[in-house]
């Protein structure tokens, strides 16, 4: 009898445990995160006065600093980064971003741009409410709303990623002008990549809450978020956006569909592409070219490109590529160069080395190396999985731009801003299409911290971070890469998921603090800012508040100027003026008003004790560099010679109280008779920058990488090590587009050139 009772109890216990495990898998215990509560309010020293009367405006504009690319833990990848198992510091909802922008970074404007694929109807509505609250606190609830202390825009990120160069268009942020319900779409528009945002492997749903039992609720909540995302039904295709069901998930496969849907909504919006040179998710061979074809580009909406973010710099073009093609379209692994080591080549060399170590014949090893290169290329983004057991150190600095400033990881030159400005599309021979992007920067921060680049500190919370907290977790949660065999292997896709598909371990050395967008605005209000962005009178910085003016000046009347972002047509040689001032050196800690605006605990949690806190001495501007680009005039024209970087360089005086001012003209313009694009970079004196050294190669006599010293995301690099290397922060102006307009004599051939 007793035995029967005991067996019954034991059986019940087993059933209870089983029920509990089923509950974890099916997210019975998860809770949805809220948008949070905005705690910061205006404080006496930082609030904006409302005008008593209309003041006459003049042409003078003020430079406002912002961040148009911000994620909170409403994005599932950001939530994943917040989990204890990857050393995250907890959820950061939209309210945190509002307080950080206002108090820690002291921005003038920012945009909430969580991944559309993560945003359920409920989360989209909560985001809008929070953005409205953030604006209301700033003072846009009063009369004209002309002088808010912070303007918040609503938006989302369309997170498109293709498996091949032919299907990859890359990510784009969509920002809306207004924040009222009738000025915003009912739901965001995602990409088919939604599936990746709405799924987690079973072992990663089950194991973390069991291993980290005390903090299991955070994992339950993450699983709940994933379930909510995955539970949405997709909207039907080919139905007008305003006729779609309220609670479906809307997607656009390609940019033309995205633009069409935005047209159907009929709302004022700006679309900002970014990360096109970022090879962590852009396949080898990616380029801008196909995005000039047909309706893939909307010049009215796509007015700016994010040239720099916390995920790296995508400015410059290089001649090398990660993959080349021969005449019949077959993929070829390029040869190594002094400035670039192709990853496919390195794959071959890793295999060759192992083969030789195993004592095999040279010819056999040559053959295996060739196969390894071929197999690497065959798998595109997954190529690194074809070399079994390869460590981060094995790869050296393969795939990286060696002579670029803070480059994006696995750099794709065909996705660079310079390449975009240089190419043309000649489908319509009479009217070639070109990109006329303004250049901006932002953070792409995933911890709800807009504008993190004001100081270089606290690498973990201030830079996108993602690393398991110990070796056991790495072993348990990462894909087993197998033993280091002396031959390459096919990729078993069944073992891959979003946690292990990307080269995040190497990527960690290329995460940075954020950049800023600066707008020459006629006022602080939303309309003035929007107008500045539409005019492209904007520029980007790598984080500090560098002041920059770049104008085309009239040689006869210096007061007549066309500012950066302008488009003009002329025959005569253009003349330009650049004026740059370095950012103020930062004082430690936070200014007094910060401590009044937020409680000490919240100030510590969000700002980590450091805020934007300018002193009285400016950093020196070291030099101004001018880049000249002459866009293609026929299909197939070689792009590299069209980009002159730098075309001119001006060293600035050390004593520059009024900043660095240079003037120059282009004496070749008129003779060249080509449309030309000009933009400038202002480089500040050097200072330590997080991850400016990338993989921190020890180099040989020819500049080749002999050994790397990576900045790991986990316990292999001390949390106190901010991986600082000296480099020069900079600002990039928007271009001035000068179209050659021949005189009537030139057009008829009556005048000699």
């Amino acid at each position: 009898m007793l035995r029967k009772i005991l067996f019954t109890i034991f059986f019940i216990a087993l059933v209870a445990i089983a029920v509990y495990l089923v509950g974890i898998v099916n997210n019975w215990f998860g809770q949805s995160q809220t948008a949070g509560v905005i705690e910061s309010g205006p404080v006496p020293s930082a609030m904006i006065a409302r005008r008593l009367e209309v003041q006459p405006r003049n042409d003078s504009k003020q430079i406002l600093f912002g961040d148009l690319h911000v994620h909170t833990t409403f994005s599932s990848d950001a939530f994943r980064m917040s989990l204890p198992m990857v050393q995250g510091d907890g959820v950061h909802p939209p309210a945190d971003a509002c307080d950080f922008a206002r108090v820690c970074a002291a921005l003038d404007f920012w945009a909430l741009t969580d991944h559309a694929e993560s945003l359920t109807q409920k989360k989209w509505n909560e985001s809008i409410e929070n953005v409205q609250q953030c604006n209301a606190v700033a003072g846009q609830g009063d009369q004209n709303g002309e002088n808010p202390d912070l303007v918040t825009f609503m938006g989302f990120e369309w997170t498109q990623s293709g498996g091949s160069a032919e299907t990859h268009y890359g990510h784009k942020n969509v920002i809306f002008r207004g924040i009222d319900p009738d000025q915003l779409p009912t739901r965001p528009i995602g990409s088919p990549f939604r599936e990746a945002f709405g799924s987690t492997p079973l072992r990663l749903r089950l194991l973390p809450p069991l291993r980290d039992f005390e903090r299991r609720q955070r994992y339950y909540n993450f699983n709940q978020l994933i379930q909510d995302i995955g539970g949405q039904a997709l909207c039907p295709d080919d139905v007008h956006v305003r006729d779609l069901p309220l609670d479906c998930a809307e997607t656009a496969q390609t940019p033309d569909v995205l633009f069409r849907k935005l047209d159907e909504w009929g709302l004022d919006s700006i679309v900002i592409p970014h990360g096109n040179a970022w090879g962590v998710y852009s396949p080898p061979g990616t380029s801008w070219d196909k995005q000039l074809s047909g309706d893939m580009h909307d010049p009215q909406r796509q007015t700016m490109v994010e040239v720099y973010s916390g995920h790296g710099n995508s400015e410059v073009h290089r001649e090398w590529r990660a993959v080349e093609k021969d005449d019949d379209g077959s993929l070829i692994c390029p040869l190594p160069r002094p400035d670039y080591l192709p990853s496919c080549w390195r794959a071959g060399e890793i295999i060759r080395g192992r083969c030789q170590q195993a004592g095999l014949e040279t010819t056999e090893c040559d053959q295996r190396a060739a196969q390894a290169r071929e197999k690497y290329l065959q798998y595109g983004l997954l190529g690194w999985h074809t070399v079994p057991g390869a460590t981060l150190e094995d790869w050296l600095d393969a795939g990286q731009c060696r002579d670029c400033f803070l480059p994006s990881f696995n750099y794709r030159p065909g996705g660079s801003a310079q390449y975009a400005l240089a190419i043309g599309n000649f489908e319509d021979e009479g009217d070639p299409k070109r990109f006329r992007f303004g250049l901006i920067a932002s953070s792409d921060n995933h911890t709800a911290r807009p504008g993190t680049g004001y100081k270089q500190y606290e690498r973990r919370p201030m830079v996108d971070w993602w690393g398991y907290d110990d070796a056991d977790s790495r072993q348990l949660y990462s894909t087993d890469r197998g033993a280091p065999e002396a031959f390459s292997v096919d990729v078993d896709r069944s073992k891959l998921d979003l946690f292990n598909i990307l080269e995040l371990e190497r990527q960690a050395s290329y995460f940075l603090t954020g950049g800023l967008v600066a707008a020459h605005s006629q006022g602080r209000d939303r309309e003035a800012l929007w107008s500045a962005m539409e005019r492209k009178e904007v520029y980007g910085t790598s984080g500090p508040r560098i002041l920059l003016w770049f104008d085309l000046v009239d040689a006869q009347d210096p007061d007549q100027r066309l500012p950066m972002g302008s488009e003009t047509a002329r025959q005569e040689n253009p003349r330009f003026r650049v004026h740059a001032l370095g950012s103020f050196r930062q004082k430690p800690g936070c200014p007094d008003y910060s401590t009044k605006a937020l409680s000490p605990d919240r100030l510590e949690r969000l700002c980590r004790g450091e805020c934007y806190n300018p002193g009285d001495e400016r950093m020196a501007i070291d030099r101004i560099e001018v880049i000249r680009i002459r866009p293609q005039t026929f299909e197939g024209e070689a792009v590299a010679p069209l980009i002159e970087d730098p075309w001119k360089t001006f060293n600035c005086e050390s004593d520059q109280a009024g900043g660095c001012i240079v003037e120059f003209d282009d004496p070749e313009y008129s003779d060249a008779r080509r449309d030309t694009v000009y933009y400038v970079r202002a480089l500040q004196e050097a200072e330590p920058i997080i991850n400016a050294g990338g993989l921190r190669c020890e180099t040989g006599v020819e500049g080749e990488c002999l050994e790397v010293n990576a900045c790991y995301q986990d316990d292999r690099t001390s949390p106190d090590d901010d991986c600082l290397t000296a480099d020069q922060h900079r600002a990039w102006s928007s271009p001035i587009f000068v179209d050659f307009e021949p005189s009537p004599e030139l057009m008829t051939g009556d005048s000699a050139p």
Partner: protein
Amino acid sequence: MTQLPEESRRRQSLLLAIAALLGLAMAITGLVKPGGASSVIPADVVANIDGRQISLGRYEALLEDMASDSREPLTAADREFALDRLIDEELLVLHGIELGLDQSEPGVRKAIAAALIASIANQAETVEIKEPVLRGFFESNQEFFTRDQQRVIHWYGGKIAEYSDPVADDQFITGSYENKKEKLNESGLERVSILPDQPLNFAKTRDYLGNELAIEAFALQSEEWSEPIRSNGQIHVLFVASVLPGITPAFNDIRALVEAEYRRRQGEDALRSYLDALRAGRDIQVQEGLVESL
């Protein structure tokens, strides 16, 4: 099947019972007990609280942080404040442990204190506030809600080496704006054009002028000139062309903000009362001599 001896069967049954009960307990715990935070607390010297010690190293580290933020040497009051903060933190941690909020991870003292602070603040968040109370709070704190002033500022600057002071000149003091501008130009100071000729708040003025000059500018009234300001090898003279005074918005326009501020202060008051109660219930011993010697 061979029957086991009676004693063995009893032992087996006992072990089975223990295992079943353990499993049942684990299952019930996982189902009903919410996940929560946990922490581990280290301790050391300088002060002793119910047997727990605040280390000298921690105290000195906090003093160092405070010193780096301050231009003046730390006073006795500063040191006292720092120690109070550490004692408050220790009390919260102790109480947190007694409540069962312990963890095994390093650096969780802040998490425990933050968790308790947040829970106290949350209580203030959930209390219903009557409208007359909120209005009364707004009326008695109007200064806090008054929007900041803006100024239109003219900024003249130049190098010290080339400067001859015109500001003390009688003609400068009594002259018109254009006269003064001419005098400044003659003295080597030019109008700095990067500063926009439009009303700017303090934060934006600081982005152009820097902290020191922005403070000087906002101390001036409408149509007032500053004295020459020397900074980083430069001379600056500021003129405030106009001042847009601060405006107190109507209560209804900023009701949400007023409520948020009220709740925040209620939370802080609640926290203070909570800490005072914790202090009253603990035996706190301080090594005064050691504190004074630092």
